[in-house]
């Protein structure tokens, strides 16, 4: 299964300290001097966006839906998450689908050739959109303590932190700490 996809590499791009399985960065997103066109008219991939717990050494089209067939397995006992199972290279994966928070959408962006002579200038176009992400664990059931869940916490925190405040709101608020 998936033998044409190339080998699976588990070398991370940079080596983090032990006992950590994910990391987050800010700002340096390799999109310098870019325009980004966020459109909603691309192909809708909702229900078909999967984050795998391994590195597949391939970029490009593949018969994913022909081989990768997730099955619903009811609801988790502990946290009530809707669970799914799938197999990849004979390994059992356990996953759950996270709907994107209200007001957010997912975009698959593709780099366009720069129309100008400036090599550092790029534009990114929306090729597809999605409203949920299914992420997969290999040796444990999905949980609300998983990294992707926790990454989405940031969307909630950002709303609280970055909601603009007017002078009137500030004056009328009783800030009690």
């Amino acid at each position: 299964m998936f033998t044409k996809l190339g080998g699976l590499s588990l070398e991370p791009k940079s080596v983090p300290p032990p006992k950590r399985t994910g990391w987050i960065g800010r700002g340096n997103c390799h999109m310098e001097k870019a325009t980004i066109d966020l459109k909603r008219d691309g192909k809708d991939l909702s229900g078909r966006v999967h984050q795998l717990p391994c590195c597949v050494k391939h970029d490009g089209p593949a018969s994913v839906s022909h081989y990768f067939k997730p099955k619903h397995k009811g609801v988790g006992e502990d946290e009530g998450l809707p669970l799914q199972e799938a197999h990849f290279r004979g390994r059992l994966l356990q996953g759950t689908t996270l709907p994107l928070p209200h007001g957010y959408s997912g975009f698959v962006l593709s780099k366009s050739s720069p129309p100008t002579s400036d090599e550092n200038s790029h534009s990114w176009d929306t090729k597809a959109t999605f409203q949920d992400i299914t992420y997969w664990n290999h040796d444990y059931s999905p949980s609300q303590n998983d990294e992707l869940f926790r990454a989405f916490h940031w969307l909630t925190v950002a709303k609280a932190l970055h909601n603009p405040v007017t002078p009137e709101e500030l004056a009328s608020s009783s800030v009690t700490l």
Partner: protein
Amino acid sequence: MSWCDSVQEPRILVAPDPGTDGNGLGQMISLRHPKSGNATQYLFVNGMLQELQWFKNLYGSWFLGDYITEDGRMYLSTPIDPVFIMLPIFEEARMKKGDDLGRFRQLDEILFIDGYPGYMQLMSVVENCMLVVSEVKEIGSSKFFRLDDSKVLRWLCYKVCQLKQTLPKLDKNYAVQSEKDTLIDAVSILGEYLKEKPWLQLLCDHLKLNILEVTGKAQVNAEESNPGLRNELQEQSNDKKATTAKKGRQAKKVKLETESHNIKDMFSRASRKKN
């Protein structure tokens, strides 16, 4: 023609829905990070400034319909209150010395920063948002701004309040924290956008917190099971290695070995078999 036929270097981005009223065309602009002062990319779309962060599991790739992308990174774009970005700029602009309150300056003067033309693009946004932390004098049709310490402090306290109400709703770990721990968490998240002097120190003094409790929280949390968001918000360092996000999963019960294998061993074996 399939949607993925012409895809080049795909990126997965989760961002605020552009809606029907905006055109969704965003511009990446380079601004100084308010804490470190380093050049940082922000997205300016539909008159809204957004900060970009990325999340990556140690091992990960994407299936996108019938398309595979090796890079398992996910970008998050979230609105940022421009006041955070502008605080250090307005702080420098008033040229405060000692007890002197500093100078009133016009916006175009304040926002002219050599090597950072992006600030000028924010002119209309800044004019409205900075009223909340500035004194403003109008002379004829011109407006002159000067940062006001007491207004900044009140604004920061308001932000702490908002975070304090939000954090306990995130998950069970936050819900069971003491009020003081939640306060420290809130201030340390805020501290990701503030220089220690003057603002973070001023805020900590006002809240009667030791600044070391706030700035040292990230290191302490690395040893604890109670997860916090600070590590997830660290700015990428200059060598482009990102700081790690806390794992946050509860310690698992020790299981007896029953021919189980680490995913790394299994997948690397699968790779070797193929070769």
